[in-house]
């Protein structure tokens, strides 16, 4: 839907939604939120762009192709389970750092896992949406 009103608003809303999605991701461990809903919200940010300015405008601000996001996210999620395995503990045993980081909070493998979920979900939703919208536009 090409509308000045929408596209102008989308430009402001887009970074806001992304920022909010990151917020949801990292606070999910302690409050409502998490990788899923964070990834979904991030995806809506791109969806907003593609809806108001076409898929190409959304792809332009995507750091990597959706497939790559999916792969990367899965790797993150999978990889987060490996350190414990290397340490002789069961797969996906949570390992936590003794300090806290800004934004992220206390780093630990479950946080990495959740980040993987976020990236995967973002990639998946965009893969689906872009594919369909591009075909719809064609």
């Amino acid at each position, binding site marked *: 839907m090409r509308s000045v009103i929408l596209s102008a608003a989308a430009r402001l809303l887009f970074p806001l939604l992304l920022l909010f999605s990151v917020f949801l991701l990292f606070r999910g461990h302690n409050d409502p939120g998490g990788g899923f809903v964070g990834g979904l919200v991030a995806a809506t940010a791109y969806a907003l762009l593609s809806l108001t300015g076409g898929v190409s405008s959304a792809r332009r601000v995507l750091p990597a192709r959706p*497939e*790559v996001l*999916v*792969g*990367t996210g*899965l*790797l993150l999620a*999978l990889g987060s*389970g490996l350190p*414990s*395995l290397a340490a*002789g*503990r*069961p*797969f*996906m*045993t*949570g390992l936590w750092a003794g300090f806290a980081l800004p934004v992220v909070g206390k780093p630990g493998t479950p946080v990495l896992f959740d980040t993987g979920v976020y990236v995967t979900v973002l990639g998946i939703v965009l893969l689906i949406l872009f594919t369909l919208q591009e075909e719809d536009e064609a």
Partner: protein
Amino acid sequence: MNVLLVLPLLVPLATAVAGILLLRVPRAARAASALGAAGLLAASIALLSATLDGTILVTQAGAWPAPFGITLVADRFAAAMVVVGAVLLAAVVASSVRGLDAARERAGFHPLVHALAMGVSGAFLTGDLFNLYVWFEVMLMSSFVLVSLGGEREQLTGGLRYVVLNLVSSALFLAGAGLLYGTVGTLNMADAAVALRAMPAQGTTSVVAALFLLAFGIKAAAFPLFFWLPASYHTPPMPIAALFAGLLTKVGVYALVRTGTLVFDRDRAFTDPLLLAVAALTMVTGVLGAMAQTDVRKVLSFHIVSQIGYMLMGLGLGTRLALAGTVFYVLHHIVVKGNLFLVAGVIRRVGGSFSLDRLGGLLTRSPLLAAAFLVPALSLAGLPPLSGFWAKYLLVRAGLEAGHGAIVGVALAVSLLTLFSMTKIWAEAFWKPAPEGSDPAPLGAGERLSLLGPVLALGAVTVAIGLGAGVLFRFADAAAAQLLEPGLYVRAVLGARGGGG
């Protein structure tokens, strides 16, 4: 032990991820796929060898003690299923090099089959009912995509039927898992088994159990819930169909066996006769359906249904020998049925068609292909000393020892009709002279290796199982003994907590 149990999940997942990342580099994706298949095979064999002495391997994912986290468990049956699945995957990946068109390969065949393998392994190894649901979904979703990966009319319409029916089954399964939690307050199978022993056998939980029976029954393609299978299994390319035919329904059977022996084993007076009746009807309708077909793929598809009946028969009989028969049957069938579908692909490649009316002269054209067909076909029909004979023999013996002559009669009659079907393919495709207008297309040297190689290798497995039936029987018997002693499983999973179970 921690590693052994997760490798069958991690290796295919990592391979699938590599496949996704390499989607635009088909050669590399193929290499990764082959490597992954080999890796899974090696990992699964290591897993199996660790369970051979009767050890039930357990790992508590995340180090959360059962029943709180998700437990991965491998007893003999589960480990063997993983191995056979890996064998089939390796064969399918190998035959896809020539057996699959480039477009499909690029469209994600490799990541999809490995995702499927991950789902299948997960379903075999998990000790948690909801986790089983998740693995089922992984497997189904991959199969959904694979079945429709051709974009031709029958693939898509057949795919739609397949998808909808399996989603109905998933919805039932999900509901069952939720309701089970709502009654016993746990999802861990071992824990649920303990909890259920403290409840009346014929209360609400038995209704929930029936819900699972229904959901797994659809996945296993049991009578009368199998309609989706012959409507869809013949549609994808044969390497894909082989994977489906070998593995997917068997996961349903596995789930029935696992839950039937571990969790829902309290109401046998109700479930056993039901299972036996379903088994008989499944055998008969499947084989009758097969008799009428003239398309090789459809003949084979209907036979899957029929043979599911045998596996259910063992479960319904419920004795140790019968369960050993089911275990034996399932393991043998994965190899044989997968192989037959691969052979069907080669038949089509050499003979130019799947239709028996348009095939002929293949014995002259490719005696090696004929041999490759005969071994699994005769095994399927239960001819000694091939693997299928022993599977049938065990079930027949178990049935007669349990005094269930009627179902044994059905099983034997159905095996005769199976022989009829297989010889029909033989007579029409191999013996009969090639009909007018059929264009022979001899295999090139490379094709002979990549198409017939996997097929002959699986055939060798069938022969080996048959000639060394004792080895597999001893294993199946031990697996059955383990299945019939749920206390072992419970103690392995729950530790001292489950000691009383």
